[in-house]
Every structure is written in structure tokens, then in C-alpha cells.
């Protein structure tokens, strides 16, 4: 994670500034691809002071050093009054990329996920899925504006939640900068994650949930589950502090959505007639189109999570591509071997599984590691969606659990393995062994699962008792589009 790396760098620099010239050489040796110039712009100016001067000092021979040192000291003394507050500096390259990435991630929900899901339900329910995704986009946006951004990314309270200091977007103005990009951009980028996470849950209870109950559920869920967990991992909370690595949301987005989906499908119950009544996807053409949009948009999701346009973002894009392709082919292979024929739904599902699994690892794994992650995801998500579901018997309509929870868990754990530079990864944190990192990852996974499951269960039970979650049998047979929205998706 970028924050951890900057902290590490800061500590090394603090040591270096005491013994400036030697210090530079030490840093350069520790990190082979360490480059001073880009690093300089990331540091707060105060710490920059001594390092910058040390670099200049390198160019002067020993005889000139004495004169220069006194000048340097004078320069430093002059600049001290101005260096009272750490100033984040806007970088237009980073900003341009992050604005683009934000658009790509929103595109993943509307229409990427909408189409992916709509195609898999029966035609009488196609619109219901799409309006649910659309409505979630709008609702979560409003909540974000009011308080959710603050809960997730406001100042930390006991490592558990953010305060309401940024409620109603207080302090976020045109020139407010966070890192190297405007806070407006970083905030909306994070919003798109908060949007797609609940939208994913829709897949678990498709074709039987009341629209009103859905809106209420989503409002409560993002507030009580997404906000806190996002804070734990990314907002300065306890999981981030513990050293859990989750680059783009294996826990925050996918495990969260998948487990909530499992709980929801169990609470709501199976669709009427499941599993004996045929419930064929009405348009896998739409599903494949949606899957393609998800893949392309995911570059914004993963590479954008670097919050900068740099090598880490580039590598995140590369590993995303590799893992996804591997997972897609793996799922295809499983179908070919176990059923006899490869299928379009299979390759699309495999691709999504790969995308999910590489998400937490995207800023940490290397190319070969990502192939392994993709393979594991393709294999395990195939079995979870195709076999496990039939064996246990729950009606997770669109495999929110099978793909997102299982894929997220696989990816989160394997992140701890493939971050190791032995596998071409970014490298384990200093003093942390592979085993220790995998343990940290497991803690992150377990904490998310337990909290999410319990909170989701409570929310659903309350809503079921007050407003009812599910449409009645007659409505379900008629189809949600007509019954809940007075519309037909197709008037052919």
C-alpha cells in the first residue's frame, strides 16, 4: 500500500538526513529500483528539505563542501517558517489518470455489471436487475455526499471508523489536494467502489427482492458494513495498521459483497420453483457484453487504486490482464473436462473470477504470480459456483458468493504469498515473513467475513420484520418488471 511505503521511506529519510550523503547511497542500495526524483515530489516538503540539499551536495567535491554547507544551512533556515504544514502537491498526470479511472469504475457498474446480471436472469426480471444497479448508484452517491465518505475516510476514531469531520463534503474544495490528486477526484474514485460493492450483492437475491426493501437494505448496509470495513483497510483503521495488504478491494469489495450475498440469499430463501423449474439466462449476449465491460473497466479499478500514474499502476494493469485471462481459460478448461463442452457463460464467469481474485493483489503481485492467482481463482470459483452450490442447495442466483466471496478470499490470501519478491512481487514489508503476511491476510479476511455476516443478518432480519424483503409468490411468477415497475424490458 502506498501509505505504508511512504511511511517506510520517511523513516529511512529521517535517518539519512542526519548523515546525508552516506544516507543517500544506503537508500539507493536497499531498493534497487529506487529513484529519487519521483520520490521527492511525494514527500511532505519539510522532510524534503534535508534530502534535497543532500542531493545537491553530492555534485560538489569535498573542497567546495564547506562553503556549500553553510549556504545550505542558510537556505534551510530561511525555508523553515514556510515548512510548518506538510503540503500535498498536485500532479496533473496522476489527476488525469484518476479522473479517467473513476469513469472506468463507474462504467463497471452502469452498465457493465447491470448487463452482466440482466442477461443471466429471466426476461421478465431483466429490468429489475438494471434498475436496482442504477438506483444503488444514485443512492450510495447521495449517502457518500452526506456522511459515508467521512465514515470511510474521515479522521480515524479508535481504528474502527472515521469521524464525521468530512460530512457533507466539508473541507473538500476545488483546490483541496490529497496525495497528488484533488480530493474531489480521490473521493469520487472511492465512491465508485462504494457503489459497485452493494451492486454486486444484487446477484444473490435477484428475481425475488422488493425494490423498496432493497433500497433500505443498501442504505443500511453501506453505512454499517461498507463504510467501516473500507475504513479498517484503507481509511487508517486497524486492518491497514496491522499490515493487511488489499490493493483494490479484495476484502472491502468482494468478500464483503459475496458474504452479504450468501447471507441474503439464505435469509430470503430460494426462488419459487428452484432448482427444478428452468430459469435459463434470457440473454447471454448481454452477459458477455457486460463481462467485457467489466474487464476493461477493471483497469480503472486496479490500476487506479495506486492513486497515481506510475509503474505500480502499470504493473497493476498487467497483472490484472494476466490473471483474468488465466482464470477465464481455467474455468473453460474445467467445463471442457467435467462437462464436455466449453461455454460462453463459463469463460465470462472465469474472467470475472480472475478479476476478483487479482483485485487485492494487483499492486503487489508480479506477472508470474498473477498467473498463479488467476489459475487458483478459475479453479476454485468454478467449483464453488457449479458444484458447491448444487451440493449445499442455496439459491445464490448469480453466484455473488461463488465468484466474489470465494474469489476474494483466494485473492486476499494469495496476496500474502505473491507479494514476496521471490515470486516477482513488490516485496514483503520489512521484517515481515511470508507466513506472517499470510496470517495478516487471514485476519483481514476473517474479520471481514464475521463482521459482514453478522451485520448483514441483523439488517435483513430487521427489514424483514418491518417491511418485508421478498415479493409474494404470485408477483414472483408474474415477474418483477411488471409487478414492481409496471414495465416490460422487451416489447418485441
Amino acid at each position, binding site marked *: 500500500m502506498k501509505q505504508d511505503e511512504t511511511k517506510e521511506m520517511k523513516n529511512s529519510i529521517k535517518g539519512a538526513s542526519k548523515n546525508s550523503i552516506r544516507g543517500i547511497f544506503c537508500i539507493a542500495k536497499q531498493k534497487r529500483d529506487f529513484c529519487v526524483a519521483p520520490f521527492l515530489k511525494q514527500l511532505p516538503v519539510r522532510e524534503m528539505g534535508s534530502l534535497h540539499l543532500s542531493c545537491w551536495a553530492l555534485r560538489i567535491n569535498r573542497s567546495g563542501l564547506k562553503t556549500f554547507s553553510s549556504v545550505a544551512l542558510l537556505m534551510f533556515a530561511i525555508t523553515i517558517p514556510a515548512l510548518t504544514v506538510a503540503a500535498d502537491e498536485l500532479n496533473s498526470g496522476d489527476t488525469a489518470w484518476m479522473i479517467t479511472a473513476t469513469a472506468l469504475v463507474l462504467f463497471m457498474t452502469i452498465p457493465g455489471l447491470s448487463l452482466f446480471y440482466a442477461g*443471466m436472469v429471466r426476461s421478465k426480471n431483466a429490468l429489475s436487475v438494471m434498475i436496482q444497479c442504477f438506483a444503488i448508484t444514485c443512492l450510495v452517491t447521495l449517502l457518500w455526499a452526506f456522511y459515508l465518505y467521512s465514515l470511510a475516510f474521515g479522521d480515524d476514531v479508535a481504528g474502527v471508523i472515521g469521524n464525521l469531520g468530512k460530512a457533507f463534503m466539508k473541507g473538500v474544495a476545488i483546490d483541496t489536494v490529497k496525495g497528488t490528486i484533488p480530493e474531489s477526484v480521490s473521493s469520487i474514485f472511492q465512491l465508485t467502489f462504494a457503489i459497485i460493492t452493494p451492486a454486486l450483492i444484487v446477484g444473490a437475491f435477484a428475481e425475488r427482492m422488493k425494490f423498496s426493501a432493497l433500497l433500505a437494505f443498501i442504505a443500511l448496509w453501506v453505512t454499517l458494513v461498507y463504510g467501516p470495513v473500507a475504513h479498517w483497510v484503507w481509511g487508517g483503521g486497524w486492518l491497514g495498521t496491522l499490515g493487511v495488504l488489499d490493493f483494490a478491494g479484495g476484502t472491502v469489495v468482494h468478500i464483503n459483497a459475496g458474504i452479504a450475498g450468501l447471507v441474503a440469499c439464505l435469509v430470503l430463501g430460494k426462488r419459487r420453483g428452484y*432448482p427444478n423449474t*428452468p*430459469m*435459463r*439466462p434470457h440473454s447471454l449476449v448481454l452477459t458477455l457484453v457486460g463481462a467485457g465491460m467489466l474487464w476493461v473497466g477493471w483497469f480503472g479499478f486496479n490500476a487506479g487504486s495506486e492513486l497515481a500514474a506510475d509503474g505500480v499502476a502499470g504493473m497493476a494493469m498487467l497483472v490484472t490482464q494476466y490473471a483474468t485471462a488465466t482464470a477465464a481459460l481455467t474455468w473453460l478448461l474445467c467445463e471442457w473436462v467435467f*462437462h464436455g*463442452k466449453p*461455454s460462453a*457463460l*463459463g469463460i465470462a*464467469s472465469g474472467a470475472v473470477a480472475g478479476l476478483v481474485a487479482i483485485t487485492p493483489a494487483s499492486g503487489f503481485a508480479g506477472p508470474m504470480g498473477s498467473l498463479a492467482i488467476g489459475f487458483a481463482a478459475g479453479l476454485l470459483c468454478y467449483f464453488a*459456483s*457449479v*458444484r458447491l*452450490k*448444487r451440493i449445499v442447495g442455496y439459491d445464490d442466483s448469480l*453466484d455473488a458468493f461463488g465468484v466474489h466471496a470465494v474469489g476474494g478470499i483466494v485473492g486476499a490470501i494469495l496476496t500474502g504469498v505473491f507479494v514476496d519478491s521471490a515470486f516477482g512481487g513488490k516485496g514483503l514489508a520489512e521484517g515481515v515473513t511470508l507466513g506472517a503476511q499470510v496470517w495478516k491476510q487471514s485476519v483481514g479476511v476473517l474479520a471481514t467475513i464475521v463482521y459482514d455476516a453478522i451485520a448483514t443478518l441483523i439488517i435483513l432480519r430487521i427489514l424483514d420484520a418491518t417491511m418485508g424483503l421478498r415479493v409474494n409468490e404470485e408477483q414472483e411468477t408474474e415477474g418483477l418488471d411488471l409487478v414492481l415497475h409496471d414495465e416490460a424490458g422487451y416489447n418485441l
Partner: protein
Amino acid sequence: MKWISAVIKPFKLDDARDALSGIGVQGITVSEVKGFGRQKGHTELYRGAEYVVDFLPKVKVEVAIPDDRVEQVIEALSKATNTGKIGDGKIFVFDLAHAVRIRTGETGLDGL
């Protein structure tokens, strides 16, 4: 007057139509239907959910003809739509009580 209703395989529609116009039967009504006789359906598989689809798409061709042409039409249709495989379909003959040409008001055989 007779009403001939033939349920045939969809890809044989063009052959049926050509055969009918070949013997001088101009008017024809075609509908898309589903059904099965002895032909087995197929299975579809979606993420492990297997569906046996019994109903097969068919096409129903319907014509109204004078009594004296029944044999001719049946023979033409049969020859055109026969593939020798199970699922070729069936031809049904109904008595037609009355017919009216809407534009002119002609009735009976003149209305066909």
C-alpha cells in the same frame, strides 16, 4: 373447402412455400410454434444448472383449399418437407365451413 395445417421443421419453410406456389396455391399463413412428437429435445447447461428443453421450435403452415385439391396439396407438402428423420412433422386436414374475402366480400370458393 378444407383447411390444411402442417407442422414442419423451420428450415423447411422455404421448400414448403415453393412447393405450394408450384401447384398454384397462393395464400398461406405461417406461425412459429413449439412442440414435439417423438423427437427428443436437447439439454442446456448454465454454470452447472442443467435444463432439458423438450419443446422444439417448429413452423405451422396453414392453407385453405378447395376439396378437390386436398390430395395434391398433401403430396406437395410432404415431398417438400420430408427429411427422413424423426421430427419432420405432421399434416392435419380440417373441414372449412365458410370463407370470406374481406376486400370484395366474396364468399365460399370465390373467397379462397
